[in-house]
């Protein structure tokens, strides 16, 4: 009995130590006024609504001339694009996701001694980009992307510069003490 409990404790500790380096990276983010360096510009997860792209498609979101393109990480998937001229609104927001997500995150929920719940405490800040556009028949579409923290604003600037419309004007870098409304669109 004692031996099996000890084994479970060792498993729990091993899970925590295995993910510790990732958690440290997720937690050691710089202050909110200075977004992290753009190591993967445009790296995005398609939440829903962009052309025919499947949900949760990972890829790179780029402004290419007069098109907004989503190039999938998985090369078997097709590239998706929308003309920037058809974009009626671009909005940004803030969100967060579990630092340990996906299948590993789900499996970790079954960890002994509440280790799964302990891992849930660690979350990674993200930003959202919401794009309202219309197709050739005038039908309205709403596409949502999840990007790394601080990456949605530069992309919005690029889109607006390329001719996309927005209902919320782009602001320059806010002062260090400015606190945006939680979950609110900017």
């Amino acid at each position, binding site marked *: 009995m004692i031996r099996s409990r000890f084994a479970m404790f060792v498993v729990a500790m091993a899970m925590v130590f295995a993910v510790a380096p990732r958690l440290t990276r997720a937690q050691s983010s710089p202050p909110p006024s200075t977004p992290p360096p753009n190591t993967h510009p445009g790296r995005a997860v398609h939440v829903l609504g962009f052309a025919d792209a499947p949900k949760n498609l990972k890829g790179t979101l780029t402004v290419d001339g007069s098109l907004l393109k989503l190039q999938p990480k998985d090369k078997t998937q097709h590239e998706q694009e929308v003309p920037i001229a058809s974009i009626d609104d671009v*909005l940004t*927001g803030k969100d967060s996701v579990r630092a340990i997500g996906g299948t590993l995150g789900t499996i970790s929920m079954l960890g002994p001694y509440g280790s799964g719940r302990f891992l*849930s405490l660690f*979350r990674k800040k993200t930003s959202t980009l*919401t794009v309202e556009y219309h197709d050739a*028949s005038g039908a*309205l579409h709403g596409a949502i992307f999840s990007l790394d923290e601080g990456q949605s604003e530069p992309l919005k600037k690029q889109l607006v510069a390329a001719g996309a419309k927005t209902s919320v004007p782009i602001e320059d870098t806010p002062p260090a003490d400015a606190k945006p409304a939680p979950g609110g669109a900017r």
Partner: protein
Amino acid sequence: MSFRTSNVRMTILSLAALVLLSLAAIATPAQDQKPPSLHLTGHAILVKKIVSSEVALPAAFQYAIFEYTLQELKKSGRFQTVYREGDNAAASAPDMLTLETDATGFKEGSARKRQVTTVAGATTIKVHIKLIDKDGKVVLEQDVQGKVRFFGENLRATYALAKSIDKVVKYNFVAPKPAKS
């Protein structure tokens, strides 16, 4: 079979019966309160963009509700065609209804709290839906709620809400009869 084994089996059966009776008692009042189905028919539906006149609903939530509602209505099979707002083809559609959704309540919870405590941190979205016919008459009006309690991120509440909207539509509409050839 020993006396002890049969005794244990009887206790388990009694407990199961008790649980079933309790569940039935909880479920019965809800069924009584539910209004009767309207048995409406409509061949086409136009889904309008979600407005939030009373609460500040983040943009991502507004568009997620819109997209998920379209997806669920298409799956429901209650309408032959589901149009998006602004679709030019909708103008010529006969027997078309318009779905208007107004967000009336929004409580952004915390995914972290949900996953750690299970009971706290729920995200709730409340909307008021209206189905309007071509003459401007409201054929169906109801408050609907979407919630995410344990699994999933906050945006999952929008999917729960779309499912609830679809449930209301499914309950009140009958599938259109196929056209005679």
